């Protein structure tokens, strides 16, 4: 081995640095490529739907709303664009939440709903749909959304509070999440038991996931949730990457693992709660999006997070397009499609990958 002091005053650039920079450039190109795909899918999503509008007309209405006919303007800006953007927002939120849940729980099978968040949200929705009860003072269409959001956050806060009081391990955190899931599933079952046939149908449809309830107001709230959580994730980027080395190694690097884990868990839960409140339970995106990103760019959070978000957006946009095309005139539940689209993609990537560990 070379001397520990074998560093000249003007050393040549080591070969490993050049290769690392080439690898980074490759990752950036991959991110740009997936971003372009996601943008293309978003535009196709806006252009897809009932009504005889060509892609060119839709793009024209997007770029120059004043130059489009009033009907087309309303179709594009009031109906299709909020739904398409909600697909992107939900995809980004779920994929980011899933990526961070997998990181902090050190579990490749973790997803945004691992800690019982979807069960709590479903029970909140059931309270509104079946019993007309609101846990927050809102009314109308926001009652279901408000209930789902608050109950989902309650699930996350319960784990946070127990952790603050007792200082629990990751394993205990996951087990507590499973207990919360069973608890809310039992309450949901009870609500379903007393529901009428019509209410039950409404509840089932909500739980299958739908983007139809999208609106500009909800999009604004979703962006706000991203605005609150993204800076936390980005600021903790190096520390979250270090967490993948294991708790002991992360502590050796001077990281307060317990505090970081709780903070990120709350932020990921906020994203998951927002997504589930606006679009119902949409599974698989939060699991498969991060896995695809990991296979493409690894786990350096500086590239892993944007790639996971873009993968989530792409999957959701593709699912949204398919949900409109599968049975013309009928909007297929998107939660079913995300699984159908994501699963083969995921399996093919796993089979092609020769990586060890999580890959």
């Amino acid at each position, binding site marked *: *081995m*070379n*001397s*520990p*002091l*074998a*560093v000249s005053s003007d*050393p040549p*650039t*080591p*070969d*490993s*640095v050049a*290769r*690392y*920079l080439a*690898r980074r450039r490759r990752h950036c190109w991959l991110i740009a490529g997936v971003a372009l795909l996601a943008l293309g899918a978003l535009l196709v999503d806006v252009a897809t739907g009932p009504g005889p509008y060509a892609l060119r007309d839709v793009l024209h209405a997007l770029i120059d709303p004043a130059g489009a006919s009033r009907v087309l303007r309303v179709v594009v800006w009031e109906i299709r664009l909020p739904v398409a953007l909600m697909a992107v927002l939900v995809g980004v939120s779920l994929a980011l939440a899933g990526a961070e849940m997998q990181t902090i729980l050190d579990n490749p099978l973790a997803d945004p709903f691992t800690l019982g968040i979807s069960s709590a949200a479903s029970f909140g929705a059931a309270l509104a749909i079946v019993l007309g009860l609101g846990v927050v003072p809102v009314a109308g269409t926001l009652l279901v959304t408000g209930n789902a959001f608050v109950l989902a956050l309650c699930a996350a806060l319960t784990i946070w509070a127990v952790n603050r009081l007792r200082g629990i391990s990751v394993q205990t955190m996951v087990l507590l999440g499973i207990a919360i899931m069973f608890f809310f599933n039992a309450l949901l079952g009870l609500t379903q038991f007393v529901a009428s046939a019509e209410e039950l149908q409404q509840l089932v449809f909500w739980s299958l996931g739908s983007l139809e309830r999208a609106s500009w107001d909800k999009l604004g709230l979703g962006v706000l949730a991203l605005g609150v959580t993204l800076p936390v994730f980005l600021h903790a980027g*190096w*520390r979250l*990457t*270090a967490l*993948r*080395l*294991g708790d*002991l*190694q992360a*502590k*050796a*690097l*001077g*990281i*307060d693992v317990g505090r970081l884990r709780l903070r990120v868990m709350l932020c990921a839960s906020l994203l998951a709660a927002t997504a589930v409140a606006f679009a119902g339970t949409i599974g698989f995106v939060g699991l498969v999006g991060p896995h695809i990103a*990991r296979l493409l760019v*690894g*786990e*350096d959070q500086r590239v892993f997070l944007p790639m996971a978000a873009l993968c989530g957006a792409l999957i959701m946009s593709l699912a949204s397009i398919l949900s409109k095309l599968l049975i013309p005139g009928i909007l297929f539940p998107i939660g079913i499609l995300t699984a159908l689209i994501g699963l083969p993609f995921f399996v093919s990537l796993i089979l092609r990958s020769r*990586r*060890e*560990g*999580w*890959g």
Partner: protein
Amino acid sequence: MSLVIEHLDCRLGGRAVLHGLAGLRARPGELTALIGPNGAGKSTLLRAIAGIVRGEGSFALNAEPLAPLSLTRRAERLYYLPQETPSRAVLSVFEAVLLARRTRISEAPAAALARVGETLRALELEPLAERELGQLSGGQRQRVAIAQAVIREPRLLLLDEPTSALDLHHQLQVLDWLTRLAAERGVIVVVAIHDLSLAARFARHIWVLKEGRVAASGAPGEVLTGARLREVYAIEAHVEWPADEPPRVTPLAPTRRLGD
């Protein structure tokens, strides 16, 4: 200027693991070996100094008491290299070493990259720079972990069995490199190690632990005697100090057999 342990207690899960360790000193520029049988408290001692487990008492680095400092503050001064090396993270060797640098030192990205490149070259890890941690052998991961340790430029390096997964060539190479690192940069290096011949050869000072207590502390020639090895390890051993060759500690037999 050294690591001084005047008094250190540590309890884990309600059980006392370290009992009033005292009289331990490790000096800059030297390699200090920490030896003792399994369960003697070697890892716990290193972790207590690093703040990973809670140690109580009076212990200081360069006259600065460590006990009041948080884990994060201590990591600015020292680095603890765990015995277990990570393998599941989907990170390249270069990224893993860069991570160790960036969680410690704020500097221009280009400077950090250059430093990583230099460290990988110094440890002959350049050919592995793009390989992922999961694709490395245990010994290669251990060398990456050593690169992560030294790139943080700590004043105190606490290494928990850093050669346990290395072949004979790399054991000698790494310990020789650490000895020179200590001498040339004035770093305090404390190495928990099981190979007593290597400890005798490379260390200037040896701490011996048994059942959470200090059994001995001093120069290798004073500490590594047949009587002490019988007392601490329950073995009969032959200790040689040839004039022209490295010292040799040859275990001969356990003083009691399993089932006796």
